[in-house]
């Protein structure tokens, strides 16, 4: 640690909900996607799970909405440093989708991919156990705006938010880990904010 001369920083607001190196973005919700925002109509949206599964399957908007609804209320953390407290997303637990395709015993990882071709890799365990969702709404049931990944994004709030693939198109289950878009660009394979796993080697 190197103390910076004359740097005091903002008044400290002790907050047990803030992972190391993060700050509270307050009302802001910055957008950091690297590609042109696609404007995808719900009627054109599909979500597929295949790869190391017994029954590959594709859901359209209505089929996905026919699954039991589930809400996430809590915080999100972006690798660029901001965290946002008390968010509320509505959607369907990823468990409901994964149960339907029955992952092979050999499946250990997944590549989540977007309708833009963006990818992010995740350990399958991080997508299980009520910790991941396909989110359709934000706040009090408002449709998720396109720049935030609408009509549907993956939501894995216990990992840095680049894992929560916007404009989610599918999951390919694999028996090995395969780096996604940012992971090939030097970002950490798992991205746990509480261990500050920002870049490869952290």
């Amino acid at each position, binding site marked *: 640690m190197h*103390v910076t*001369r004359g740097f005091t920083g903002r008044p400290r607001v002790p907050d047990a909900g803030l992972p190391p190196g993060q700050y509270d973005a307050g009302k802001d919700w910055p957008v950091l996607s690297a590609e042109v925002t696609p404007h995808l109509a719900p009627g054109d949206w599909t979500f597929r799970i295949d790869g190391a599964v017994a029954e590959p399957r594709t859901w359209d908007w209505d089929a996905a909405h026919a699954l039991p609804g589930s809400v996430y209320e809590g915080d999100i953390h972006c690798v660029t*440093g901001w965290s946002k407290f008390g968010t509320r997303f509505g959607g369907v637990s990823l468990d409901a989708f994964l149960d339907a395709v029955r992952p092979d015993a050999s499946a250990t990882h997944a590549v989540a991919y977007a309708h*833009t*071709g*963006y990818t992010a890799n995740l350990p399958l365990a991080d997508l299980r156990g009520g910790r991941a969702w396909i989110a359709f709404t934000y706040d009090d049931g408002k449709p998720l705006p396109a720049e935030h990944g609408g009509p549907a994004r993956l939501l894995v709030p216990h990992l840095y938010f680049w894992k929560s693939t916007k404009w989610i198109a599918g999951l390919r289950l694999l028996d*090995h880990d395969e780096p996604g878009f940012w992971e090939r*660009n*030097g970002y950490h394979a798992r991205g746990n904010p509480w261990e500050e796993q920002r870049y*490869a080697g952290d």
Partner: protein
Amino acid sequence: MTETAAPTTPFTPPTRFAVPGRIAVGEQTASVWRTATLVSVRRETPRASTFRLAVPDWAGHLPGQHLMLRLTAEDGHVAQRHYSIASPPDDSGHIELTLDHVEGGEVSGWFHTVARPGDRIEVRGPLSGFFAWPGDRPALLVGAGSGVVPLMSMVRHHRARDLSVPLRLLVSARGPEDLIYAREFGPETTPVFTRRAPGGVPVGRLTAAHVAPFLAAPPPGGWEAYVCGSNSFAEHASRLLVEAGQPVDRIRIERFG
């Protein structure tokens, strides 16, 4: 050690829109924090200054890349932010950052009100192999405000290496006095003024008419477009490019949040 063989063809998603591919960058050294020394400060506009840093063992960067910077208070409180690298790649052992003074900003506030030559700060990088221009393809650069910073690294690289590949910069600023690097621009640059302009120059935001001439006559192989600025500017500019016919998989966007 046993390891499963790496798959020969990595999974490529079967989707419709497209994200541009990765640019090959050097060895990733992002995990190392280096102590940099501020050597000089240069004012660019009333709100922006350039900070020149000596970075021991800087691994080198490609134009367009950024770094992560951190400031640490006596009690251990840390503030870290991302900043684009303004200087072109060279072997001087120095890099330059240009920071806007954000009202009430924790990090930019320290740079603009406290920092002086000799101060030491920590940096890690370079980061991202996505918003980077290796100098190998025609580049159409579109930026606003401090979003011009990574694009300036590209312009300077183009000049320093006397590259013949076409490069054009469209840069938006509120007025001439807010135009960062104004003195350095040449015929490759078209400024767009949104609030105040010199006599005879129209005032207003970037429009389809600014973009059209470049896309009406693209160079052989087409442009690689690099868009940088606030999210609202990035949305606006990237939409104009798409509407003018620029393929989505050849638009790279860096949003400052």
